[in-house]
């Protein structure tokens, strides 16, 4: 009986077999988060194979870095992941400082942590907003941008810029924060904390949203590790791993915070919803860190004396990794003793996250492609550098 049914099904399938279609998604497409191009081999709505093509935003960052001096690299790092500029620059300056053995003043360390965590919130807000947009809800995007704007205002006061800050410098930060800035930051986090609940009510626990994201794009832990996926994507797959805790840099070992991980609450561990939910909870953890930093921040200098002289690291090499909003950002820096880096390689978290895409996208539908790309939270500026 069963066999007959199966055979019948097979027969029908054979008869209805139609041609597969190649679909170019991007590089100009509303939800490829920049200029990503996905070549989809589709059978109706089902995607049989998805091949990402990158490089449309390649700006030769690494070649540039070899042709400018050490401090001049910082603005270029800002332009890699342009929604998490502070974190990018932070990783670079820590690499140079480690190579040179510079001790950064306490106050500068605290300011760096505060701006890095603020930027993490801003970046996650963007991820949250655009993810809503990908799934088809427009309103969360506007709400997220409303609050992100307030963070940008704070950054503007501190650094003079709203997107590309060039604020962390080798040996400290560009300048001390203006008077009253710390109070404004405190006011912001007091304002922002209840907003997270608002986002959850609006999007996170929406039935349709859960239907669209749970059990979609499941990334098993072993696959994630093998593909070098890091950050919220790795945590979404259930790994309690955060460089700020497990391999602390700067002064992150002084703060209390949790590491949210995906538990498969709505579906399977490592699905799109888990990755998204990790980001939402991370915003709350960043608030905790900022609050502690604001309580502890001492007065004093914001620049080490070495940072004011010409930067000339000794011969050698260093690999430094930091936890940006998108995961582990590594700088592999080789110095030949001159004022320019001999080689600067960037290990981009989005690059590795994108490389796993074809594995988790296979067999999904076209709408799932958008959901998966959005849940990986990629920034093409960082993938292509």
């Amino acid at each position: 009986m069963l066999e007959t049914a199966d055979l019948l099904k097979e027969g029908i399938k054979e008869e209805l077999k139609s041609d597969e279609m190649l679909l170019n998604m991007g590089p100009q497409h509303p939800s490829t988060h920049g200029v990503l191009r996905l070549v989809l081999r589709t059978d109706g709505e089902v995607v049989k194979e998805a091949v990402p093509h990158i490089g449309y935003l390649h700006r030769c960052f690494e070649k540039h870095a070899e042709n400018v001096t050490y401090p001049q690299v910082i603005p270029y790092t800002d332009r890699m992941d342009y929604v998490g500029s502070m974190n990018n620059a932070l990783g670079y300056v820590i690499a140079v400082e480690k190579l040179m053995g510079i001790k950064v003043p306490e106050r500068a360390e605290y300011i760096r942590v505060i701006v890095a965590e603020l930027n993490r919130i801003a970046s996650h807000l963007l991820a949250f907003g655009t993810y809503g947009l990908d799934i088809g809800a427009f309103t969360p995007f506007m709400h997220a941008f409303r609050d992100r704007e307030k963070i940008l205002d704070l950054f503007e006061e501190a650094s003079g810029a709203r997107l590309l800050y060039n604020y962390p410098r080798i040996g400290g930060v560009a300048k001390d924060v203006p008077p009253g800035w710390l109070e404004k930051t405190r006011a912001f986090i007091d304002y922002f904390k209840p907003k997270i609940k608002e986002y959850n009510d609006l999007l996170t626990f929406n039935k349709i949203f859960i239907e669209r994201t749970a059990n979609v794009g499941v990334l098993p832990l072993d696959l994630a590790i093998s593909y070098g996926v890091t950050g919220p994507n790795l945590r979404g797959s259930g790994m309690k791993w955060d460089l700020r805790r497990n391999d602390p840099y700067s002064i992150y070992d002084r703060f209390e915070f949790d590491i949210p991980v995906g538990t498969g609450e709505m579906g399977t561990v490592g699905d799109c919803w888990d990755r998204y939910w990790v980001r939402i909870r991370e915003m709350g953890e960043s608030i905790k860190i900022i609050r502690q930093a604001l309580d502890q921040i001492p007065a004093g200098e914001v620049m080490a004396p070495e940072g004011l002289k010409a930067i000339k690291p000794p011969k050698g090499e260093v690999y430094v990794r930091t936890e940006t909003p998108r995961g582990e950002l590594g700088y592999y820096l080789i110095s030949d003793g001159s004022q320019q880096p001999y080689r600067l390689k960037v290990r981009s978290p989005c690059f590795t996250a994108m490389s796993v895409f074809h594995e988790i996208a296979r067999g999904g539908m076209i709408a799932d492609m958008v959901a998966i790309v959005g849940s990986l939270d990629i920034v093409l500026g960082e993938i292509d550098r």
Partner: protein
Amino acid sequence: MRNFVDQLVNNYEFLETFPRPLLYLIAMVAASAIILGFIAILVMFFVWLERKVAGHMQDRYGPMEVGRHGWLQSIADGIKLFLKEDIIPALADKPLFVIAPIIVFVGAFSAFVVVPFSENLIVADLNIGIFYILAVSSLTVIGIIMAGWSSNNKWALYGAMRSAAQIISYEIPVGIALLAAVLPAGSLSMRDIVLAQSGGFWNWFIFRNPPFGFVACIIYFVAALAEVNRTPFDIPEAESELVAGYHTEYSGMRFAFFFLAEYANMFLVGTIVTTLFLGGWEFPIFPSAFAFLNPIIFVLKGIALVFVMMWLRWTLPRLRVDQLMYVSWKVLLPFAFACLFGVSAWMLLLHSA
């Protein structure tokens, strides 16, 4: 309409000199022009309203520059679209490409012929009014498929195929949910259906045959949302997936036709729900006392329902194709049948009592 013309001729003798059929024709054209103009203005108002509703739900203002609170924005948009270059892709199927938006537009607007704005304010009170609306509004899908096919664009084709699957699936729960209102009225004429609900809001079909009338109303509204491609069922034009779906290649006035048709369809759904479930042109209490307000009340009820659609759009994400089909075939359809059965059972009980 014929009666109306005959009455006119009887009152004004000089009209006798004209042949009757010509008079009928003139009257028809005039009535159509009036309804078209009225709906067109209403649609422009909806476009403005949508932007305002979206703005305020998103913590911003929406259009503010053109006129006070941007009330002239739709006109400005219209002028812009009218002046835009009309692009037809080189490899498009030209005749189909040109005719597709017109079919969609005609399908959306001609349904208003049977919409009863008040007891006498109705262009044609067909005795199969409901079926007429179902038939004419299904024209839309043909236009959409033509648009998607003729564009010679993969995204447009996807949008068209999705749309075809979606609209045809949702026709079924729509039709059956409507029967839950047709049964107690005992007529397919829009006017008769409203008259059957007269005498206060407790007589409205949404509250009759509890709870089936209410459920049928909800089913119809949800399914109709899908039929007019509104969020959460806007997969044929799913912006973040299919760029712009079936109208990806359209620009200028041709795009505007699709755009206006969408809003006209929204209002059509509003008027159908109003007619079939919400008492049509009647004021909720003491309807006879407020009889002079009838057309306004009808339009207001329609606008309120359109507002609900906008509210949903700016709140909910979008379903996926398979989930959309699931909702239609496995949720709405069984419930619609249950409603039909329940309403019939109620009526049998009441009649036998």
